[in-house]
């Protein structure tokens, strides 16, 4: 044993070690729950994806063939494509509309009307997505509010069961997503706008900027961080959609609104193809990461 080592074993050093140990004890319970109920299943998903298994009998090692099956099966690839189409409705439309709404509130309604708008528009965000699905399932049905309104304005010819029609079912599901996510994005962007230095607006107005000019040159650049957050939340909501689709269409008609979440559920619990379901789950998780990481990176760079 060298002198160096002896010196390191001073009481102070032992104190530091003791403190580190205590610190780890503070993390241990959280880490345990996270490991058992999140990391372990995550590892198992990857493991299952390499086997053929019906959930009861013995499992057979099949290597990567489940992944090939997913990529060759038009229904499963279709579900992935559907989820990307939903991004347009869950993400692009709400974020754009929310930008307009928030800037209107910010400009014309700072008082009571603004507060009320905030509260009302946020409402769909606190109710269960299942409830949103049920409510809109009724609104979009044949005798529902949407067709009633269309008939009232003389568009009775286009009325249909929107969620039951191959051509309109996916956009109709998208509409539900817009309704749910618009308020959330609006309120978030509005919070960002109130942080913008009013002097920027004053100088823009002195230059004779109109609403659009002011929006493009002051509001939009200052909101890059909040827009990034909105995009992250809404893109995950689209790619990992389950509740709304399950309740409003169940993935149908045909497979026209099936998303990966629905297919994973069907494959595991109805068709007992656990390996295939797991391969699709791994692909879904990788897709979410692939889409989210660039948005996040953009955010970080903006901030620094």
């Amino acid at each position: 044993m060298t002198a160096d080592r002896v010196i390191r074993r001073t009481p102070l050093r032992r104190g530091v070690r003791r403190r580190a140990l205590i610190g780890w004890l503070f993390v241990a319970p959280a880490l345990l729950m996270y490991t058992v109920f999140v990391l372990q299943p995550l590892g198992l998903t990857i493991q299952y994806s390499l086997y053929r298994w019906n959930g009861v009998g013995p499992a057979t090692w099949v290597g990567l063939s489940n992944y090939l099956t997913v990529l060759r099966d038009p229904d499963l690839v279709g579900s992935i494509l559907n989820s990307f189409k939903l991004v347009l409705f869950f993400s692009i439309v709400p974020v754009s509309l929310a930008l307009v709404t928030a800037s209107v509130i910010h400009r014309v309604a700072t008082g009571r009307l603004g507060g009320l708008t905030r509260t009302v528009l946020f409402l769909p965000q606190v109710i269960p997505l299942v409830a949103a699905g049920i409510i809109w399932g009724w609104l979009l049905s044949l005798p529902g509010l949407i067709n009633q309104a269309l008939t009232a304005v003389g568009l009775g010819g286009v009325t249909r069961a929107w969620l039951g029609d191959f051509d309109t079912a996916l956009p109709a599901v998208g509409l539900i997503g817009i309704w749910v996510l618009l308020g959330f994005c609006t309120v978030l962007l509005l919070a960002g706008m109130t942080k913008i230095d009013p002097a920027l607006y004053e100088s823009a107005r002195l230059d004779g900027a109109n609403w659009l000019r002011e929006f493009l040159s002051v509001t939009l650049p200052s909101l890059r961080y909040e827009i990034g957050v909105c995009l992250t939340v809404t893109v995950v909501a689209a790619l990992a959609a389950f509740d709304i689709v399950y309740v409003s269409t169940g993935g149908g008609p045909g497979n026209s609104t099936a998303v990966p979440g629905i297919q994973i559920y069907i494959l595991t619990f109805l068709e007992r193809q656990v390996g295939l379901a797991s391969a699709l789950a791994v692909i879904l998780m990788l897709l979410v990461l692939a889409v989210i990481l660039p948005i996040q990176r953009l955010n970080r760079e903006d901030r620094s």
Partner: protein
Amino acid sequence: MSRAEHYAGAALLLTMMAVTVLPFLSIFTTALHPSGTLPRGIDWPAHPQWGNFVDAVQVANMGVLLRSSTFIVVAVVPVALVLATMAGFAIGLLRIPGARLLLLLFVFGLTLPFEGIITPLYFLEREMGILNTRFAIVLPLIGLFMPFGVFWMRAHFANVPHDISEAARVDGANTWTLFWRIHVPLARPAISSLGVLMAVWSWNQFLLALVLVEDPSRRTMAGALGAFQGHYATDIPLLCAGTMLILLPTLLVYVAFQRHIIAALLQGSVKG
């Protein structure tokens, strides 16, 4: 700003509010029609059937549902708060060795879709023998809340000034006292916002309830609503009445605490 612009803006806002509220109005008027009929979108009935709500209370088994959902929230939120706060404290304030790596491990779970792990979760719980009990929902929810909870609490503790701890240490406080007596009271706003978020997320959790618990009366409110829809999809007025009732607790809590809830959900997403 011109008057015309002001009115145009106000008109836009009123329209958007109408679009948000009309769906609720539609299920409300529909709920008042005679059970088994097929009314139109928004149509005030000649003879409002207020009794539908009474029927729905019985059919939806509201009393049992409320108790079940409340049990799940009460079992999940306090435990998850304590675990997340302790871990956030160790990672953000004690800066234990490996803190960065731990944080990274937790943050990794932030964007994880629940569908990604639901399949093995089912088989794991079957092995553990907790399938179809409320713990089938409670235990994984606690685990699934850890990434966000730890991340949230670490963000709080990382910004607490260091001299507070040093002063207490000089007075001879050990880590446990330091945590409970000094830092938890200081973190109350962050903890209560996190609690609001976790409560809303638990109450509204659907996928776990659907897959892990067969009996709707042992599920969350959202899970029970899904089952209710499955049984009464053909009786639209009753379905609407049941949906309204199941939404009622959420709406009441939202109206009462809306500032708090909006603030929490916003901070939640910005931090995440």
